[in-house]
């Protein structure tokens, strides 16, 4: 069983801004442990001869030339914003959260 306990889950939940109650934390600690173990078994399948990879497709250097493309107008950019002011997104003061 992987070493993932209730405190780890509570910590991750806080980092990810997910509100979880005591029961959910307990349940998730168990479920996550199983998932981590499953991932571990994949790691075991790959020997030292398999290089570490961050991407499933063997592609590199997918680039775009430095040419200006389309943009939104401020109105379009703000069309889904809950609140705006002076053509800018309006958000609550956020110092306390940082």
């Amino acid at each position, binding site marked *: 069983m992987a070493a993932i306990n209730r405190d780890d889950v509570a*910590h991750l939940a*806080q*980092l*990810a*801004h997910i509100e979880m109650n005591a029961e959910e934390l307990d349940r998730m600690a168990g479920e996550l442990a199983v998932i981590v173990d499953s991932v571990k078994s994949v790691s075991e399948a790959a020997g030292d001869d398999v290089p570490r990879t*961050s*991407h499933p*497709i063997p*592609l*590199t*250097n*997918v*680039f*775009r*030339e*430095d*040419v*200006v*493309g*389309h*943009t*939104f*107008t*401020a109105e379009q*950019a*703000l069309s889904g914003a809950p609140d705006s*002011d*002076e*053509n*800018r*997104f*309006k*958000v*609550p*003061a*956020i*110092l306390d*959260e*940082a």
Partner: protein
Amino acid sequence: MSTDATLSFEEAMEKYDPVLGFEVHVELNTKTKMFSSAPNVFGDEPNTNVNEVDLGMPGVLPVVNRTAIESSIKIGLALNCKIAESCTFARKQYFYPDTPKNFQTSQYEDPIAYDGYLDIELSDGTIFRVEIERAHMEEDAGKLTHMGGSAGRIQGADFSLVDYNRSGVPLVEIVTKPIEGAGSRAPELAKAYVAAVREIVKNLGVSDAKMERGNVRCDANVSLRPHGRERFGIRSETKNVNSLRAVEHAVRYEIQRHAAVLDSGEPVVQETRHWHEDTRTTTSGRAKSDADDYRYFPEPDLVPIVASREWVEELRATLPEPPAARRKRLQADWGYSDLEFRDVVNAGVMDEIEETIAAGASATVARKWWMGEIVGRAKNADVDPGQLGVQPATIVELNRLVEDGKINNKMATEVLDGVLAGEGTPAEIVEKRGLAVVSDDGPLLEAIDAALAAQPDVAEKIRGGKLQAIGAIVGGVMKATRGQADAARVRELILEKLGVEG
């Protein structure tokens, strides 16, 4: 806001040994953003240089800007770094409204450039080597303006307004290794290091390098330890110190503050500090905490960057002469003393002098004009000397007028003022202001005019070609000047005046 206790800098230096570290963010001047084709332009209307990628809309895919990669490799090479054969992007997760995706695309375990160094020259010529840990690529965040509460500060703000124009602008973050051994030169070294990085990226042409626009931003880490102890003290990180002077002042202040904390027997708090230019002090930001757990993982939407050695060498071949090497070459070419050259560099007219010499002036003449005349005028006008409006050709022309004896030095400065006032070229101004006179001839010409006016019939004869009649006019002039005029010169001037060939 309470004021922190400080020790005098001298006392702090007697008791403690400072260790520095810098993170310098350089905004690249690509035409478009790091991962989107929206324009990378400063100062436009809010939220108009954005598209769906910059706003972090669901389902969008980033695509890497090739030019940004090349600029990053160039910066790495100029910092004497190794360039990674292969590297990846990573997601740095945090919640803050400047980042609409809730993560910043950055690099983590494998930066594009690593293990470099910069040799920094201090004001007395001492060379100090700063080791570079890494230079990695990432994207800039949007700009927050805090509204309400105490003007513009986040403390007490009621709400914030966000402009995402800067979101996604390509950044290269340059991180030093811990810098030991700077001692009391630490503040000076801090300033010189950031100045050197700025100079390099400007010289490479990969950044506009304007600190006042945030193109180059510095976070300064400072810690103190008792002399002779190897283990580092606890550091503070002063954020966004955005002018060269501020870098020097911030490091100096933090050394003084840390020294007072340590003297009191307390540990230094590991935290972010905010620099305040008005009071030249820092205040506590937030303590390092769980919020710094960024849970980096490889960016699944971007494939690895592979920098073939051929590509790297191609880019290396395009690098301009490094600024330090260029300074050495120019000083030798121009034959300036160390002091003269340092003054030129500090006055910010090295490029202008180089152009003036290229335009045809001697090194001495170029320095005389820029240092002697233009720097002072620029200071009065509160602009950079290069922006005052003096062209290299102007100086070459002014100097020629002086050397040809058309005007003297005093008049030349007057002509320079005329050029700056937009009255035209030096020759035009000499003409307009009636300066094209060698001053010694002035009284002679007056006397000649008087003598010609007194004897109009003689003047007429001379015009008619009877040159022997000139004696009467010369005599009149000699009389008027009580014999102190050079008769041969008077004769010349009379003929010139009447337009007659001698």
